[in-house]
């Protein structure tokens, strides 16, 4: 940024905007370019806050409702984890616990930490912070696992009148948390982590 180059996110070409402009298009691939992602901080905050709001009903409302002759039994995500816990089923129970409860909450906390440190102009732990960002980017998709579990359980267990499984209202909020946190990761510009560093030692594009 300090050298006046814009780097294309899609094709990696370095180019300069026409004099006086602060945005342009990549001459090679046509992507719209800016020095930093547009309104990165505001957009990431918006997605993170929306995800945090959806996180509450996602965990309190049932994601699955099992109807048998004895009546209806709604299950939240946590109840699903407990239900899976058995002498043979515990590894799966741990997978669901990790993917559905720990990853989404850890993602929200990690993104808030990145946003706050960037806004405060922190110059410490840059390498660790960019690694944290990459980890969040890499593992975030695995939270979708519970959406697929509930989808296929409901599609398959249709043994009327004995037993039927239907998706519950919590599923929408849970899927929203996954999508919103993925969009938050996409909106965050990791280069902002380095912008607060003193300009002396290295050249920025």
């Amino acid at each position, binding site marked *: *940024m300090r*050298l006046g*180059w814009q*780097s294309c996110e*899609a*094709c*990696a*070409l*370095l*180019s*300069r*905007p*026409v*004099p*006086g402009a602060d945005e*342009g*298009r*990549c*001459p*090679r*691939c*046509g992507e*719209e*370019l800016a020095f930093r992602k547009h309104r990165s901080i505001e957009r990431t905050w918006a997605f993170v806050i929306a995800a945090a709001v959806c996180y509450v009903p996602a965990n309190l409302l049932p994601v699955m409702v099992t109807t048998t002759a004895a009546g209806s039994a709604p299950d939240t995500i946590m109840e699903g984890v407990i*239900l*899976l816990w058995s002498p043979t*089923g515990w590894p799966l129970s741990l*997978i669901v616990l990790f993917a559905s409860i720990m990853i989404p909450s850890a993602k929200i906390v990690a993104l808030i930490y990145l946003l706050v440190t960037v806004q405060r102009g922190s110059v410490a732990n*840059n*390498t660790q912070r*960019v690694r944290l960002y*990459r980890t969040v980017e890499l593992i975030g*998709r*695995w939270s*979708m696992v519970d*959406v*697929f*579990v509930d*989808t*296929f*359980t*409901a*599609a*398959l*267990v*249709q*043994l009327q009148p*004995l*037993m039927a499984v*239907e998706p519950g209202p919590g*599923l*929408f909020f849970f*899927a929203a948390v996954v999508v919103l946190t993925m969009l938050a990761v996409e909106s965050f510009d*990791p*280069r902002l*982590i*380095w912008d607060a560093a003193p300009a002396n030692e290295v*050249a*920025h*594009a």
Partner: protein
Amino acid sequence: MTAPHTSSSEPAYNTPSADLELVACPHCDLVQRLPALAPGEAARCPRCDKELWRRREDSLERTQALTLAAAILYVVANTVPMLGLSAVGHHASTTLYGGARHLWETGQEVVAVLVLFTAVVAPALQIGFLLAVVLAARRPRPAHWVATLLRHQPKTATWSMIEVMILGVLVALIKIADYASVIAGLALFALGGLVVLLAVMQAAFDPREVWIRVAWADEAARAATAPDAALEATP
């Protein structure tokens, strides 16, 4: 100073760096020159350790073979039953598409669209875009639409979640196995193979090999760079 007038509302094209080996790290913006690499070698950012480029051996040929194989498995995975269930005289079976349709029918339209997109549409785009790119890149100067597909291909890969879906299906199978006997359909094995193929296909592909030859959006700007030097550096 004002920007030169352009006919559309879109911003004007930038002026490219004459040195095509000069890049800025996407994660920390450090400006650096890409070194010449032997196949299999990778260049990493010295400051933040982001992998900037990994040169692949025989990238286009291998990607083409893997993409074709993935396309075949994709068709199998989406046409034959994935899961079957039988209990007390009832039989049921479902496909990938059937799972999404059931969600739609039970009032979960948004989640149904998400499942359909991440498990069916995005993988199809991921395979289709890459196949079109590697086929078109056999020509010495691929047309500009190749650049457009290549630009969007990583986004389709982000939202293509077959590997996550397989894990979800396995968990569902084990849950159901407590009270009904489940049958793993042919599609499940095809999907298992597809997960591996998609990962290998994406890893075999070196986008830089296409970027240095593709037709530019602003062809006049291309002449100002040294594309032939870049071509020689990466035969």
